[in-house]
């Protein structure tokens, strides 16, 4: 019902989708985050905290299942080097009814941005720079606090 993965291999959307579409779901919501070529970004390299990352993703998925009536929740996050157009993260939720799936999917990606120990480094024009956290991510994550 809950599955999380952190993997340097490209995310296989078809396999992810097949894995979530089981168990009597009436609605499946997904969100994919892709590398954008903003400002001439040539590559993105993702670093993480092995062990703690997986635990954080499981905790997030468990929080979603506890809060909404889900039949399944999956979080797959890529690490290592990737180029524009590639998928960094894929979140999927399944539920009997659509509102639960849609809300839980948004919750997972918002919270993942601020709670899971990943760090992004951009490569552009041959140089590298660490991505700074965005205040808007904190705002997005905090909106889920209200109704807890």
């Amino acid at each position, binding site marked *: 019902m809950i599955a999380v993965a952190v993997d340097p291999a490209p995310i296989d959307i078809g396999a992810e989708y097949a894995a979530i579409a089981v168990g009597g779901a009436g609605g499946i919501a997904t969100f994919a*985050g892709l590398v954008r070529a903003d400002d001439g970004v040539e590559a993105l390299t*993702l*670093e*993480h*905290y092995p*062990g*703690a990352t997986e*635990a*954080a993703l499981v905790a997030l998925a468990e929080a979603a299942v506890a809060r909404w009536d889900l039949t399944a929740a999956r979080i797959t*996050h890529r690490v290592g080097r990737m180029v524009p157009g590639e998928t*960094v*993260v894929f979140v999927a939720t399944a539920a009997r009814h659509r509102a639960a799936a849609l809300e839980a999917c948004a919750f997972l*990606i918002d919270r*993942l*941005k*601020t*709670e*899971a*120990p*990943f*760090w*992004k*480094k951009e490569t552009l024009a041959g140089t590298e720079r*660490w*991505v*700074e*956290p965005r205040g808007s*991510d904190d705002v997005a994550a905090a909106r889920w606090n209200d109704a807890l």
Partner: protein
Amino acid sequence: MATEILYFAWVREKIGTGAETLDLPAGLTSVGDLVAWLAGRSPGHAEAFADPARLRAAVDQTFVPLDAPLGRPREVAIFPPVTGG
């Protein structure tokens, strides 16, 4: 008891290593105390830890504020704010 200290992202880069195993001295009460002590280990440590407001930490893989009590951890990680997803 030796403690595993982990560094990630630019903290790791400035220090030049992702992990070191250290015997912590007595008297380190908070995570912030540990960071201040670590800052004295090398110029790289000092640079990495120059602005504690830019640092986050986990003690035995639980995310904590820098003023959290340190206790007797097996593993402490110091890193910048996360930027995944």
